[in-house]
């Protein structure tokens, strides 16, 4: 590995800018309470926009070629697509958080700063090309998330969520790191291209060491995407964390974990394709079945959404499993659609939520169509999309994933996916039934406390429907953002 040239640092401009913006927000947040809250949120949103522009103008023209910074940092279409998803998800999370944090009376500066630091970690994950830099970026995101999950420290459930998330997250990071260390022991490298080049020889000489190494690595990654049987932390954390943070975990963290999962499997572990496909297939099937069946039995909407997010991780794994170009762009398309759908759903939950975690059960949605036709209609769109019913982005997302699996010969896994989508109809439509067919105890209209939040919900709904009517442009974009395949 040669010396690093100064121009390579210029290419890091978006990530460096975002980290600095996080520190600025931290400083501004400590100035004064009333003024600081809105200001910090605004600064965070503006800096995310600047980072997006920097990604396009600085990293956009540099797409292709070798990984820079001693093989650590890859700038390719794949990384840029994910960075787009992360920036959009964080921006929407900030909009979702504004009222929530203000009403809770919790300090705003640290909250937004931690969101920005987590996003910095996610950007580094998307471009990470060395297991060590991927791991530390993942930790940066995870540590910020643990703190955010426990941010409402006067609430017991928030404390519980943070502690459980931290302990299980630390355990999974340890497993991940142990797997990486075994792979390093067997091959002498943690850089993804070198790893792929040396794996066949290492496999022949030390098959068991390599197998244990990549299995532990995969288990650590499954933990982070919340796939069964490594999902036990998810429901408690999703229910206990402040709802905007839950949305961030369900969208941002999950997407970032998938970004590195796919890159590591496709580029680092490419020589082990046959082996990891079996493991991914098994995990995908168990995840879809357990996630959906457990979601059926829930009475708390946030808990149901937690299991639903587990089930959706299973669907995405179907696309990962295919290991074809079709599978890869289907994963990218699905994660984009899923991000908007899930953020919209959680935004609606936030609007209906009141203090002390009220408004979270199915019964609280009774008669919503009469109390607030707008929110009910929006929730209907999101529930249709999560089930995968046209005309929504969720429908095409699932079609592409299942089609990719069938084409690459994994028909039975796709069949399980279709069957389980049918099961999911039951619990998603359960909310719709409550909203439209049950009467509420009091019929007073639910006010819309925040126009900004309502606007964000509307935006998510419009994009969800647009993706279901005109998926073409995004599909083309995803097709232009592929990885080299194993």
């Amino acid at each position, binding site marked *: 590995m040669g010396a690093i040239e100064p121009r390579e640092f210029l290419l890091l401009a978006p990530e460096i800018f975002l980290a600095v913006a996080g520190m600025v927000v931290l400083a501004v947040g400590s100035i004064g309470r009333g003024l600081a809250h809105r200001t910090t949120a605004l600064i965070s949103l503006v800096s995310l926009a600047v980072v997006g522009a920097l990604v396009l103008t600085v990293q956009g023209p540099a797409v292709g070629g070798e990984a820079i910074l001693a093989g650590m940092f890859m700038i390719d279409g794949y990384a840029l697509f994910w960075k787009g998803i992360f920036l959009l998800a964080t921006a929407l999370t900030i909009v979702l958080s504004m009222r929530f944090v203000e009403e809770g009376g919790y300090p705003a500066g640290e909250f937004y700063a*931690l969101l920005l630091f987590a996003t910095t970690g996610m950007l580094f994950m998307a471009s990470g090309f060395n297991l060590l830099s991927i791991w530390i970026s993942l930790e940066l995101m995870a540590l910020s998330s643990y703190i955010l999950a426990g941010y409402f420290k006067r609430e017991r459930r928030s404390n519980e969520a943070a502690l459980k998330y931290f302990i299980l997250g630390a355990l999974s990071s340890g497993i991940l790191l142990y797997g990486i260390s075994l792979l390093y022991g*067997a091959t002498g490298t943690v850089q993804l291209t070198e790893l792929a080049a040396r794996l066949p020889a290492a496999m022949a000489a030390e098959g068991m060491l390599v197998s244990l190494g990549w299995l532990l690595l995969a288990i650590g990654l499954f933990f982070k995407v919340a796939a069964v049987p490594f999902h036990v932390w998810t429901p408690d954390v999703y229910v206990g964390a402040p709802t905007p943070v839950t949305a961030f975990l369900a969208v941002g963290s999950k997407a970032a974990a998938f970004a590195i999962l796919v890159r590591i499997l496709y580029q680092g572990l490419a020589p082990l394709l046959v082996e990891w496909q079996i493991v991914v297939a098994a995990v995908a099937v168990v995840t879809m079945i357990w996630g959906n069946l457990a979601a059926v039995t829930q009475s708390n909407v946030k808990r149901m959404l937690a299991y639903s997010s587990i089930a959706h991780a299973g669907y995405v794994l179907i696309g990962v499993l295919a290991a074809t170009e079709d599978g890869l762009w289907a994963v990218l398309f699905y994660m984009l659609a899923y991000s908007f759908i899930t953020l919209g759903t959680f935004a609606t939950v936030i609007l209906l939520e009141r203090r002390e975690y009220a408004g979270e059960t199915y019964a609280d949605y009774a008669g919503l169509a009469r109390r607030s036709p707008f929110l009910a209609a929006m929730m209907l769109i999101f529930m249709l999309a999560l089930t995968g019913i046209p005309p929504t982005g969720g429908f095409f997302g699932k079609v592409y994933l299942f089609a990719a699996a069938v084409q690459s010969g994994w028909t039975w896994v796709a069949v399980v996916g279709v069957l389980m989508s049918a099961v999911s109809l039951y619990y998603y439509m359960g909310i719709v039934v409550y909203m439209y067919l049950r009467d509420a105890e009091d019929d007073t209209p639910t006010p819309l406390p925040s126009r900004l939040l309502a606007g964000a919900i509307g935006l998510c709904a419009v994009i969800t429907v647009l993706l279901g009517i005109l998926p073409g442009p995004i599909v083309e974009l995803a097709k232009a953002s592929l990885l080299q395949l194993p």
Partner: protein
Amino acid sequence: MEFLVQHGADLLFYVFAVGALAAAVGVITLRNPMYCAISLLVCFLCVAALFLLRHAEFLALVQVFVYGGGIMVLFLFVIMLVNLHRLRESSVFGEYAPMAVVLAVLLVALVLFVFLNYDQQAVAAAPGAFVSVEGQVVGNSEAVAWTLYRDYLLPFEIASVFLLVAMVGAVVLGRKS
């Protein structure tokens, strides 16, 4: 004597490796937090000795100074400041203990199985990786510096943001609001 000369390094390795493991088990099983902290210190020192055996003198010293020194002192301060007596009575695992034991035993068995079947000759550890830079023999601190500030510069910088987040988190969650 002959035996000691030939296998002295191996013997020392096993002494310190077993010491580190035993101390690590002590950290999580002892009931008195102060004993746990001392166990942790023993663990750190054994790891430092392992670094020395690999000719990583700089890392060994950093391990002693930073972990054995600075971080241990912080641990001891916290233990003395915070009242931890109630910890002694509470049971951590509860009803999940049997399952946890089964899973832990399985995992350890799996790892042992792999390592007992592991052919040490097949995997060539890079000789003198801790004391060479591009083929030239240098001191350990120089080798660490080259690795840390050139090859692994990016993770090093990300780690600095990570530490900032850890600090912010400790303040946010710890202060009275």
